[in-house]
């Protein structure tokens, strides 16, 4: 009888479509540089960290609000220097070591090691001085920083907890999966963490999946081909071109989640160290010149021709996808070549035989550098070239490989204009501190200034510092809104578009809700399932 029941169940399992605890497959585009969650500074390692690391609080990628994870509650002090967590009891690392307040202290101490030079650690470093830990009764811990840290609680979304006592060190994790195997250049195999604490509403242990296989696939073309063949089931960040190519056959498996957090922008080199003639520097430092260039570029054309409508014209540094920080009062930059010419005439330029000349009679021409191999940017540069020809400006386009481009931007300053993108992984404007402070190394148009070169940059410095030390979110928003207004007016960066967050999720995957914020498709990995057919393939 028992045998009959077993056979019946087996037959049902084979014939009835349902959900299994199979393996999910998708691609990383490079080898992870590290499996130590505190050292992560590349996309591949970040993906592994997200899938294996346990955090105190997690940012819900859809609502953009923090949710409890290993901490059931948290409280930031009014002065923004202290945060107190109440830890979930009974949690164990993947190797069985218990998790507690000591582990939180150990993780934070390791993260803040000045020799580590971790981007996550740098986010907490608002002033010199040591952190203090207070292990409190009832599974609580308080961390006090030497100065207020803006958006303190949200920073913990990136901090994967490590064990202070486990002999497995960083291999002992608190996330839904553990690293089971890694073959360099080929794959990373993750297996379900047997001690993962989360359960679903029916009391079933999460994650549903048994394993995640991350194939290392640098070639995007092959990734798309493998998705079509069913060999991989997710594509996290899809190019518009591939999206359109897949659309006729796989419409229901493609997702356009609207504008992403990343921006595409161009800027002029205004550095005094720039290896360009003085008269050109004078153009680039002219606000009216930059505004005119911005007006003369048709952003809708960029969206339509370059991104096949999978992009949104950009207004400023913050994408409309960022629900809290985007300044919705800013108007879109209008495309108006007549207005651009009027601005240029006002700034002393004149049109002569269809060619724009400055007050000294120099024909206005410049070159834009961008990174070679990025087809979208190469096409954007071509559209900009054509748009600016309409106001008598001759533009040359130079494509360089990435190291050469960075060398020109950061060392030799041997360029006139640059077209590049900024990847925004975080929501908080503090992540862009080094971009907006005039002393910042990433203040691309004129980096590492000893004192602000212009009055508006001095104002931006003041506002950025003020928002970083303010503790009220509303006050910080008001201050950063002003920064966005100045950026809109002065246009040190001419923001062009925000690419849409495009992704692909196979029909075999259930429970995915793609969003704009990274990781777009697997942000709720523990709730994803694959169909039995796929699981047994």
């Amino acid at each position, binding site marked *: 009888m028992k045998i009959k029941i077993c056979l019946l169940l087996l037959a049902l399992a084979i014939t009835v479509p349902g959900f299994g605890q199979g393996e999910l497959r998708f691609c990383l585009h490079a*080898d992870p*540089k*590290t499996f130590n969650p505190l*050292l992560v*500074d590349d996309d591949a390692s970040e993906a592994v960290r997200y899938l294996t690391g346990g955090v105190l609080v997690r940012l819900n990628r859809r609502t953009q609000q923090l949710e409890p994870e290993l901490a059931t509650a948290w409280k930031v002090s009014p002065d923004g220097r202290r945060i107190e967590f109440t830890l979930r009891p009974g949690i164990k690392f993947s190797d069985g070591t218990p998790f507690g307040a000591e582990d939180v202290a150990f993780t934070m101490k390791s993260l803040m090691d*000045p020799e580590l*030079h*971790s*981007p*996550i650690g*740098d*986010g907490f*470093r608002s002033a010199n001085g040591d952190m203090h830990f207070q292990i409190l009764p009832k599974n609580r811990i308080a961390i006090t920083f030497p100065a207020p840290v803006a958006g303190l609680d949200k920073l913990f979304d990136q901090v994967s907890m490590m064990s202070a006592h486990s002999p497995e060190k960083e291999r002992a994790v608190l996330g839904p999966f553990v690293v089971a195997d890694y*073959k*360099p*250049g*080929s794959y990373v195999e993750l297996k379900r963490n047997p001690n993962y604490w989360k359960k679903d509403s029916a009391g079933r242990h999460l994650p549903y999946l048994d394993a995640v296989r991350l194939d*290392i*696939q*640098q*070639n995007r073309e*092959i990734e798309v*081909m493998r998705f079509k063949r069913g060999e991989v089931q997710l594509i996290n960040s899809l190019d518009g071109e591939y999206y359109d190519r897949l659309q006729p056959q796989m419409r229901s498996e493609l997702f356009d989640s609207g504008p992403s957090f990343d921006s595409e922008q161009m800027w002029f080199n205004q550095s005094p160290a720039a290896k360009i003639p003085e008269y050109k520097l004078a153009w680039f430092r002219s606000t009216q010149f930059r505004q005119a260039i911005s007006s003369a570029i048709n952003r809708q054309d960029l969206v339509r021709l370059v991104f096949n409508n999978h992009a949104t014209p950009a207004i400023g540094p913050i994408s409309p996808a960022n629900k809290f920080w985007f300044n919705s009062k800013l108007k879109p930059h209008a495309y108006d070549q007549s207005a651009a010419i009027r601005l240029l005439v006002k700034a002393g330029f004149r049109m002569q035989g269809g060619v724009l000349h400055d007050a000294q009679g120099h024909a206005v021409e410049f070159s834009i550098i961008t990174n070679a191999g990025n087809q979208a940017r190469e096409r954007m540069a071509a559209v900009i070239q054509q748009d600016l020809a309409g106001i008598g400006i001759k533009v040359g386009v130079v494509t*360089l*490989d*990435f*190291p*050469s*481009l*960075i*060398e020109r*931007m*950061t*060392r030799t300053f041997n360029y006139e204009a640059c077209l590049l993108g*900024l990847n925004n992984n*975080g929501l908080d404007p503090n*992540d*862009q*501190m*080094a*971009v907006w402070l005039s*002393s*910042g*190394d*990433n203040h691309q148009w004129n980096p*590492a200034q000893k004192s602000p070169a212009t009055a508006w940059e001095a104002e931006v410095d003041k506002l950025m510092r003020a928002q970083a030390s303010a503790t009220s979110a509303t006050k910080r928003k008001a201050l950063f809104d002003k920064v966005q207004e100045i950026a809109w007016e002065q246009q040190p960066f001419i923001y062009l578009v925000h690419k849409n967050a495009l992704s692909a999720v196979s029909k075999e995957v259930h429970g995915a809700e793609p969003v704009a914020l990274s990781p777009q498709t697997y942000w709720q990995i523990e709730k994803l399932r694959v169909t039995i057919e796929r699981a047994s393939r």
Partner: protein
Amino acid sequence: MPDRAPRLLRSICLRLVTIAAVVLVAGLACATMVRFAPGFGVDERELDPRLSAESIAALRSQNAGDGNIGHFYWHFLAGLLHGDLGQARTFSQPIAQLMKDRAPATAQNIGYGLALAWSITLAAAFAAAALQNKAAEVLLSAASIALLSLPAAVVALVAVIARKPASIAIALALVPVLYRYSRNVIAKNCAEPWIAAARARGVSKGRILFCHVLPGASPQLVALAGVSLNMAFGAALPIEVVADSPGLGQLAWQAALARDLPLLVTVTGVVATMTLVANACAATVNDALRMEHA
């Protein structure tokens, strides 16, 4: 006859010394070219706006460490003597480990690729020689020219679309070159008077090919075998990149893009050693054959 062995030994020693010298010079030349390439010493992470000024300064000083070529190369060689190849900046891993991880994939790609390429080549060259058929020869030549005109990367892409391994692409990249040369060598040997004499005496085609033509053509074919290893390495680089095969070719490409000096010098050294050793082996076999004939 009795001094054959010492002569052979002397020639092997001389070749080993030459190989060591060439590898050292190749490594230094590679290091110099990388050092003076635009973009040397920069790191993509410098553009991460989350990093503090101190972290960016630390990154820059870490990357500037290899700036002095003489200093770098001296330390690299000293490390090499102790079995330490240094650390690959691109992968944050010891280079020795990376080479150990990646070499099997390339060895497999090249090994299978060469075996397949030589099988096709010899079969086609012997078939052409045996058939003596104008139409077959035109067909084989046309196929070889068509393959020759395709860049290795395109062949790799075709292999990827057809879901074939990288070794097939390497074989297809080698076959046209090997075929044309082998075909010419075999045809030249077929035209020798003793072959005509053998034919006139009614010796079978197979016997003529394997007992008379092949021994005559073997010195050139052995030399070509040595060269084919170099060609296979050359083809493996773009093919492994396009086919995403995790071998030394892909590693070299990534190292070049990131200007990873120690990794590039190591890969150059390994490839140079392999090619020179293959050539030296072919030359030594030829020397031995020549001495045998003498």
